[in-house]
């Protein structure tokens, strides 16, 4: 339905009429008019309200929590509810006592569990991102070069698994990778192996899990960059006698770099802190920082150390997050050209 028809349609009129009626009724009340005049004189307009509502929501429920995490990472554990000591205490009349306990952070550095977990998480996330790129790039490329009718169907098929439960899809891999699971049974039936290949509870299973779950996040940015590419460049290269593979390496690949960076960051950053995949598919020795944080919090009930782990993880991820924001900003600016 075109916008003009929608605007003049009975439904569109009713939408606006309802709001207009409410506003007109409110105008009858002096208190409302007075408030409105006051707010306008302060420079607060409808525009400010539009910005302010989500702004304050996010400030309160997104930014402030991080500050609290930082604060508690400096606190000491105590057996109480909540299980940490208050940071600021009034001792005497007006003297504020600040107890900064950096013991938690020292603990992180001393106990090898933590920095091994950080390094392992980065390694696992990095390898998974690379594998995801290797699997996702050909698919994104094939979809971007398909003809338009097929493209929408194929995109829908890429996105469809994303709408089903992430937890259940990871669960599916348990049944496939088990010792008497789908793959092992199939290979045994084919006669290729006698002993089942141990795949579950290994780092390999975590790679498979991450690649599988985050594949749509890799394909979509790649597709959107590849789709915008100017195909006449490839035609020109062919005219000049360039082989297809070389044309790909020198033209397509560099031009698709923004999509590669965006997709890689969209996979890498959440993968570092993943919990579900290592918990379900990994084994006890697969050290991932998400699992460590969870255990620290739920099993050890050690909130200060968990907060210290979270703070360190956040600092670790600041660089990739900034990279991603820059890549997204560049893409947004490019779209406006």
């Amino acid at each position: 339905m075109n916008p003009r028809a929608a605007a003049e349609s009975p439904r569109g009129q009713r939408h606006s009429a309802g709001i207009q009626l409410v506003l007109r009724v409110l105008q009858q009340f002096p208190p409302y008019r007075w408030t409105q005049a006051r707010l306008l004189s302060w420079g607060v307009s409808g525009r400010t309200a539009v910005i302010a509502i989500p702004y304050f929501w996010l400030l309160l429920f997104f930014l402030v929590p991080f500050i609290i995490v930082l604060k508690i990472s400096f606190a000491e554990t105590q057996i109480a509810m909540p299980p940490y000591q208050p940071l600021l205490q009034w001792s005497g009349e007006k003297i504020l006592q600040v107890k900064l306990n950096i013991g938690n952070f020292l603990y992180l550095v001393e106990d090898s569990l933590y920095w091994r977990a950080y390094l392992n998480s980065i390694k696992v996330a990095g390898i998974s991102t690379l594998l995801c790129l290797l699997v996702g790039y050909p698919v994104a490329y094939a979809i971007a070069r398909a003809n338009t009718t097929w493209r929408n169907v194929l995109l829908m098929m890429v996105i469809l698994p994303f709408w089903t439960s992430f937890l259940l899809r990871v669960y599916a891999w348990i049944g496939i990778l088990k010792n008497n699971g789908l793959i092992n049974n199939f290979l045994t039936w084919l006669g290729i192996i006698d002993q089942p290949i141990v795949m579950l509870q290994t780092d390999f299973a975590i790679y498979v899990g991450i690649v599988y779950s985050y594949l749509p996040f890799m394909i979509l940015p790649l597709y959107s960059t590849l789709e915008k590419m100017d195909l006449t460049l490839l035609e020109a290269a062919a005219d000049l006698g360039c082989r297809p593979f070389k044309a790909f390496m020198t033209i397509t690949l560099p031009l698709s770099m923004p999509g590669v960076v965006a997709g890689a960051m969209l996979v890498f950053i959440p993968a570092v802190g993943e919990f579900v995949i290592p918990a379900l598919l990994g084994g006890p020795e697969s050290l991932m920082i998400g699992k460590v944080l969870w255990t620290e919090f739920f099993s050890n009930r050690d909130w200060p150390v968990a907060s210290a782990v979270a703070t360190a993880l956040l600092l670790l991820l600041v660089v990739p997050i900034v990279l991603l924001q820059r890549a997204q900003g560049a893409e947004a600016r490019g779209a406006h050209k």
Partner: protein
Amino acid sequence: MSTAANRMTPFRISALAFGFAFLYIPILSLIVFSFNKSRLVTVWTGFSTEWYGRLFRNEQILNAAWLSLKIAAINATGAVILGTLAGLALARFGKFTGRTVFAGMTTAPLVMPEVITGLSLLLLFVAMDQVFGWPSGRGVTTITIAHMTLTMAYVTVIVQSRLSTLDDSLEEAAMDLGARPTKIFFLITLPIIAPALISGWLLAFTISLDDLVIASFVSGPGSSTLPMVIFSKVRLGVSPDINALASIMVLFVTVGVIIAGILMARQEKRRQRDMQMAAAGGK
């Protein structure tokens, strides 16, 4: 026009085939083995629907499912409201003070590992409980607030990108004719971006329904969501009634996607027809 670049080479076909097989075989295996007679989820012993019966008699799962659906619906509605406001601000209001912080805050939840957001929100709720006395104890309210904070990021991205590609000549025409911004928004902009809002609602709904980590951190006793119940069952091993649950969810999603596809195709046809009529009879 079929240029060399548009040809379906064997490489591309095999890339697509392998990619989609990789994506869909696990889902199909879930469905196939939900009908398996034996408990072993990987050896086929016969067709049976007993696991579906078991699933519908499982009180714990049904209660958790109902709770999750309620939370997801409330969360999606709130996220759409907040996300539309944020998307509008980012797309239309140009530079305002604090815009960079605002833009960062709205997109950071998208990539932040959920363990961090879950932990930080729990600590916030505990601190708020100490200082203000609200929220007292954790449960449905805290889960809903946490999910809204996460999913509004997705809605913001959707709305922002939709508004930035929107041709604002209609809105400018309305302003020239003297309409106030509120009226313009509700009468013109909102109907046009309605499909984006609907897909944002569905996305927020799905993400909330499926979230495990954040819900585990901020939930309280007696408010177990469906993913929490599934996770505790699945940690102990494979369980065919979970396969049955998975098949039902896949069915709903597939039906939903097909309906959405049909509706969009129909809308596209209607749009083409309107444009033709406008071009032919508009004089």
